[in-house]
């Protein structure tokens, strides 16, 4: 073995260009594969992270406009969800719906604490809103059922808002204090973390908002969590029944899809999952083709190598080299060179993904509606890196095998007379 290694070292050293070209083909193939998969993973992880902390089985119902005449009423009627819709959702669908809430926005209001004030919208919500859109509480509590039942004037601010209203002290000291919302005194019962992801509104109980700001029967949008709908079909079936029932409550055609809008996060996620699967498959296909070009590169160089060395093989055979020892020499040489450079490519690829991670993995981008990290942990599992390298080494060797076998079989006199 030692002899073979020194043989290979001698040939590699004396055929630098050829060795480097082979090595480059291999290293490049692996490097590109890892970088590509890393970038893809970063993108997918970024998307996944955005949806993290959200409950999957949630639905939001918005009022819409009817698209067809029904029951003597014209199309184009604006549908506004009302309290009876909340009641229907909670009582008639209790087998599937867990907890019903609503979300009702005010217009711009002024919140003031002494001479400090700010203007914002207040979202009147139910206790379950926290499950539908994650609100990370820093101090205090979120809206509870008693707030709803008793129409309590409670207020939940973001840490930024709290800071703005109490610029001289700790934002937490605002907890439990009374602040003015327009002319009404509201008690701050909780402060949540501004996630810098979109608008940060203040929250209150929706029943309070409804009554104080004279919204009457307006329910805004209905939000609920549900269970027992495992797949797309059952979700669709439920949506149809639910739509028909709410439509009926507004005298709209049962199948009218625009009278109310349903946003189902479960089916939404299913679609996103399949989208990500497509991205993943696509990345793998591109990656494998990159790898293939590496393999073709190795095979090509092996072909040239063998052709170039035919005369040398002839000499070796004339002085007693068996075909097998020629073949062995070529194969071991190919394996060692591809492994060595494959390893280099792998290391460079891993370094590249780590650099990507450092550079872009944690930075956030202004997306217009807020800032988000779209690129999270763009790295590749080390096992995949090693597997890809092994695939390349094996495939490269097989690609080089065909000309090698030919070279090993050639009659020495023909080999000696070549070139």
């Amino acid at each position: 073995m030692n002899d073979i290694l020194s043989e290979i070292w001698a040939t590699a050293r004396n055929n630098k260009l050829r060795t480097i070209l082979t090595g480059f083909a291999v290293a490049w193939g692996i490097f590109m594969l890892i970088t590509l998969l890393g970038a893809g993973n970063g993108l997918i992880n970024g998307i996944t992270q955005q949806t993290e902390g959200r409950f999957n089985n949630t639905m939001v119902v918005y009022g819409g406009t009817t698209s067809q005449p029904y029951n003597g009423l014209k199309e184009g009627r604006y549908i506004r969800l009302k309290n009876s819709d909340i009641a229907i959702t909670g009582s008639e669908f209790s087998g599937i719906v867990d907890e019903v809430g609503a979300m009702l926005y005010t217009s711009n209001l002024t919140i003031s604490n002494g001479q400090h004030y700010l203007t914002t919208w207040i979202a009147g919500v139910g206790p379950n809103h926290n499950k539908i859109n994650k609100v990370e509480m820093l101090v205090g509590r979120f809206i509870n059922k008693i707030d709803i039942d008793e129409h309590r004037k409670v207020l939940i601010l973001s840490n930024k808002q709290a800071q703005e209203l109490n610029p001289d002290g700790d934002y937490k000291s605002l907890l439990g204090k009374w602040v003015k919302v327009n002319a009404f005194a509201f008690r701050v019962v909780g402060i949540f973390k501004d996630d810098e992801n979109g608008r940060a509104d203040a929250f209150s109980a929706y029943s309070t908002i409804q009554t104080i700001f004279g919204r009457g029967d307006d329910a805004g949008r209905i939000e609920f969590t549900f269970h027992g709908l495992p797949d797309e079909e059952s979700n669709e079936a439920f949506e149809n029944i639910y739509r028909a029932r709410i439509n009926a409550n507004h005298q709209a055609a049962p199948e009218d899809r625009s009278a109310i809008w349903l946003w189902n996060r479960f089916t939404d996620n299913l679609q996103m999952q399949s989208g990500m699967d497509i991205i993943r498959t696509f990345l793998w296909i591109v990656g494998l083709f990159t790898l293939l070009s590496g393999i073709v590169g190795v095979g090509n160089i092996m072909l040239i190598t063998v052709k170039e060395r035919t005369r040398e093989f002839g000499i070796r055979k004339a002085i007693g080299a068996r075909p097998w020892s020629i073949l062995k020499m070529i194969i071991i040489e190919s394996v060692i060179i591809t492994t060595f450079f494959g390893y280099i490519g792998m290391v460079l690829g891993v370094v590249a993904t780590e650099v990507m991670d450092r550079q872009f993995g944690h930075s956030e981008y202004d997306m217009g509606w807020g800032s988000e990290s779209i690129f999270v942990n763009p790295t590749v599992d080390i096992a995949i890196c090693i597997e890809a390298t092994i695939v390349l080494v094996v495939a490269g060797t097989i690609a080089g095998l065909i000309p090698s076998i030919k070279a090993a079989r050639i009659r020495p006199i023909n080999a000696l007379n070549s070139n």
Partner: protein
Amino acid sequence: MIHLENINKTYYGAQPLHVLKGISLDINEGEFVSIMGASGSGKSTLLNILGILDNYDSGLYTLAGVPIKDLSESKAAVYRNKMIGFIFQSFNLIGFKTAVENVELPLYYQGVGKRKRHNLAMEYLDRLGLKDWWHHYPNELSGGQRQRVAIARALITQPQIILADEPTGALDSKTSVEVMQLLKSLNADEHITIVVVTHESGVANETNKIIHIKDGIIGNIEENLDHNSSPFGINGMMK
């Protein structure tokens, strides 16, 4: 040592070429023979068959009692390695190996250990006066030196027979004489059977027996022990 009986060889190209037309020949142990003929006479083909570098179509060839017919490449390689030493016109040294590595190579294929084959190769290089050039690459050596490296490589396995294909073809007249002297002394002192193929009558004249070959048929066989073969006399120019 060498026994040929009615050897035929045809090259099947665009037009079949019957190169050897029934060669029968015996070369005994310790002989120093040249095969002489014009280019295209079939002399090189004959030598390649003798060296198991090429096969033949029909006939019988035994080398040191071993029938050489339809051998597998592996078996042929072993016979070449153990029994035959080659000297080529173009030396056929491996360019990226030093003189001593080239000489070592046949022993490498015999599985001889690194140190042992190195020592042996150095010994042979020393005998051929190349001790100081052992670490030089072929392109750093003169033609005569290269051919001597090739001869050392041919000798290192202590073959029963040395086959030389135009050994002086790429050398000037002075080194040609040196190389022929070397072969001569190898034959005289160590009784190695040597077969030289040449088209130069001066070279052939140095051998003890001249076999003339023409158009694939053996012509006359001259005993040449006094090295006075016409048209060259005793003091004739070799080249």
